C-alpha cells in the first residue's frame, strides 16, 4: 500500500500543525514522566519491600499516597515532575476534549461556548493543581 505523507516543512506552521505537534510532544513528555515515576517508586520500594500496587500508587499519586517514604519522595524534583505532568496532561487533554466537542457541537455559538468553557476549565484546574502540589 502506498502511503502519502507530507513533510513538516511543506505543511506550513498553521494552528492545526502546531496543535498536532503540541499534542504529540506533550504525550511523549507524559510517557517519559510515567517511566521516571515508576523507576523512582521501584528504587524506593526496594527499601521497604512494597508490593506492585503500592509502587504504582507512589508513582502516579506521590502527593496523595500515604507512603512511608513521603518525605523522601516529595522533594522539589518530585513536585516539579508532578506539576509538569499535570500541565502536560491538561494541555494534551484540552485539545483532545475540544476535538470531541467539535464533533458534537456543530453550531458556531455552541463551539465558541464549549471552547471557552474547556479552556477556562484547563486554566483554573492547572492553577489549583500547581498551587496545591507546590504548597502541600
Amino acid at each position, binding site marked *: *500500500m*502506498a*502511503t502519502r*505523507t507530507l513533510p513538516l516543512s511543506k505543511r506550513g506552521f498553521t494552528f492545526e500543525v502546531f496543535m*498536532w505537534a503540541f499534542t*504529540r510532544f506533550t*504525550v*511523549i513528555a507524559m*510517557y517519559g514522566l510515567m517511566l521516571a515515576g515508576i523507576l523512582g517508586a521501584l528504587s524506593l520500594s526496594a527499601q521497604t519491600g512494597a*508490593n*506492585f*500496587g503500592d509502587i*504504582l500508587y507512589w508513582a502516579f*499519586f506521590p*502527593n*496523595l499516597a500515604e507512603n512511608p517514604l513521603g518525605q523522601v519522595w516529595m522533594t522539589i524534583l518530585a513536585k516539579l515532575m508532578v506539576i509538569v505532568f499535570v500541565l502536560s*496532561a*491538561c494541555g494534551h*487533554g484540552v485539545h*483532545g*476534549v475540544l476535538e*470531541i466537542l467539535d464533533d458534537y457541537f*456543530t*453550531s*458556531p455559538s*455552541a463551539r465558541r461556548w464549549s471552547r471557552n468553557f474547556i479552556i477556562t476549565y484547563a486554566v483554573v*484546574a492547572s492553577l*489549583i*493543581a500547581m498551587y*496545591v*502540589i507546590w504548597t*502541600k
Partner: protein
Amino acid sequence: MGLKRDVSLSAALSYQGQGPYWTYILHRIGGSALFIFFTIYILALMGVQAASGILANWVFQLIFLPFMLFHAINGLRITILDLSPKLIEHYRTAINIEWVAYVLVVAFALFVVLSNAFGG
C-alpha cells in the same frame, strides 16, 4: 452555518470500519474517562475526601483502568506511526501488536487492583 450530519447511533455502530475504527472509538472513550479522572484528581488534590475515596475505590479502578490504559497504549501507537511515516503501511500489524500489549497490560493491572482489593 452549523454542520448537520444526521448519523444515527445504529448507523454509527454498524459502520464496517473494523480495527482502526474501533481503536478510534475506544481512544475517544478512554480520553473522556481520563478527563473525568483528571477532574476527580484535581478535587482530591484540593482535599475533597469524597474524591480521594473515589480514586481509592477498587470498583472505580476496575471500570476506568481498562479505558485509560487503552488510551495510553493506543496513543503510543499513534505517536510512533505519526513520527515514523514509513511505518504507516504496517498500521494493521501495529494495531494487532497493540491489542496483544493491551491485553497483557490490562490483565496485569486488573490482577493488581483485585489482589489489592481482596488480598489484604
